[in-house]
C-alpha cells in the first residue's frame, strides 16, 4: 500500500522530533537530484517545489493535525469539522506531491520508458495506445480552470482505468486508486514555461516513471 509510505519517517528523522509524542509527517527525500529531470523540468523548479511548496504542506499538515487532536480531546466536533478544509488541503498536498515525485524519473533511469505488463494492456484496451492516453491526459490538464491535478486512476469497483482531474490539492480517494499524477499548479512549471503550459504538459512525459504507475496498478489488483 504505497500511500502508507508517507506515514513512516526514517529513524534519523524520528529522533529529531520534539517532545510531542504525536506522529509528525516529514518531507520525503527525492529519489533523484533536483536537476535530474532537466530539460523537462528545471532544477530550480524542482528545488522550490520540493523544499518550499511540499515542505509547507507537510508543516501545515502537522499543525492542522495537532489542532485537530486538541479538538478531539476537547470533544469539540464543531472545531473538528471546521478544521477539515485545512486537513484536506495540506494532507492532500502532502499525499499528491509524494506520489508525484515517485511517478517521475530522470531519462536514463526509466523516465519516459513506455509502460509494460498489465498496465500497458489496460491502457491499450481503454485508450488504444499510450499516445492516445497522453493526449487524453494533456487535454484534461489543459482544461483545469485554476489549480489542480490530473490523474490516471484505477476504479477499484470495476477495474477500469480512468483519467480524472482534482481541484486544488484534493487527493484521489474512495474507489479510485491513483496510478499517475501530474501537477497542474502554476508553481509546477511557471519559472520555465510561464503561460505556455501546453509545452510543460507535453514535455513531462519524457520523465514519467511508468514503473511506479505499474507497481501501483499491480498493488491495486
Amino acid at each position, binding site marked *: 500500500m504505497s500511500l502508507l509510505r508517507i506515514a513512516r519517517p526514517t529513524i534519523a528523522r524520528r529522533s529529531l522530533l520534539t517532545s510531542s509524542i504525536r506522529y509528525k509527517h516529514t518531507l520525503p527525500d527525492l529519489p533523484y537530484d533536483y536537476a535530474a529531470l532537466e530539460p523537462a523540468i528545471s532544477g530550480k523548479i524542482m528545488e522550490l517545489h520540493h523544499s518550499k511548496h511540499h515542505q509547507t504542506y507537510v508543516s501545515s499538515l502537522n499543525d492542522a493535525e495537532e489542532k485537530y487532536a486538541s479538538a478531539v480531546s476537547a470533544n469539540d466536533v464543531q472545531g473538528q469539522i471546521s478544521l477539515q478544509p485545512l486537513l484536506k488541503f495540506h494532507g492532500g498536498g502532502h499525499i499528491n506531491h509524494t506520489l508525484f515525485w515517485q511517478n517521475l524519473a530522470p531519462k536514463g533511469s526509466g523516465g519516459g520508458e513506455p509502460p509494460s505488463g498489465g498496465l500497458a494492456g489496460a491502457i491499450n484496451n481503454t485508450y488504444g495506445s499510450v499516445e492516445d492516453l497522453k493526449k487524453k491526459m494533456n487535454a484534461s490538464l489543459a482544461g483545469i*480552470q*485554476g489549480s489542480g491535478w490530473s490523474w490516471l486512476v484505477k476504479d477499484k469497483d470495476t477495474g477500469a482505468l480512468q483519467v480524472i482531474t482534482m481541484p*486544488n490539492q484534493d487527493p484521489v480517494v474512495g474507489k479510485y486508486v491513483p496510478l499517475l499524477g501530474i501537477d497542474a499548479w*502554476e508553481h509546477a512549471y511557471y519559472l520555465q514555461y*510561464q503561460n505556455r503550459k501546453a509545452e510543460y504538459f507535453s514535455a513531462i512525459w519524457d520523465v514519467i516513471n511508468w514503473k511506479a504507475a505499474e507497481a501501483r496498478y499491480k498493488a491495486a489488483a
Partner: protein
Amino acid sequence: MAQAKFTLPALPYAYDALEPYISGQIMQIHHSKHHQTYVNNLNAATANHVKALQENDVRAQINLQQAIKFNGGGHINHSLFWANLAPANTSQAKPESAPKLMEAITAKYGSYGGFKNEFKGVLLGLQGSGWGWLVKNKKTEQLDIVITKDQDPVVGDLAPIFGVDMWEHAYYLQYFNDKASYVNGIWNIINWDTAEGRFLGRSGALKL
C-alpha cells in the same frame, strides 16, 4: 458578426511602472498573455453562445456556461485589477486619495493597519487559485473582505472596490513561493483613487 468583440484593455501605465513591487516581466506576461487568453476564449465562447441561442439549443447554451464564467470572470477580474493598481510614486497610490473609503475602513477594521492585516490573512488562506477583494455590500453599505476562487468574479449584491490576483502567475517569477511578500508589496501600488470611485459608485458599471 453582430455581437461586440471583447478586446484587451490597454494598461494605464507601463509594464515596468509597478516595480519594484511587481516586475515588468510579470506585468507583460500577465497582461499580454494571460489576460489576452481570457479575452480570446471569452470571444469564442460568446460566439458559440450566440449561435446556440439562434439555433434554440438550450443544452448547448448551458454547456457553455462554465467557459463563459471562467473566461468572462478572467476578463472582468483582470480589467478591474489593472485599474485598481497605480505606480507607487503617483498620488493615486496614496491612501489619502480615498478619504471616504478610508473612513469606512477605519470604522470597520479599527485602522488602515488593522485592515491590511485582515486582508492579508484572508488572502493567504486561499487554497488554490483565486482572488482577494475588498467589497461593498450594495444593500447594507458594509465593507467586507472576500475571496473568489479561480476566476469567479464578484457578483450579486457585492461591489468590488479593489482586487488582488492570488494566482501564482501574478507573483511567481518574482516572489516564488513567498506570496506574503507579494501581498505586503501590493499596498504600495493600490490605486486609491479608483477604489474611492468604486466605493462611492462614481465609476458606474465596469465597461468591458
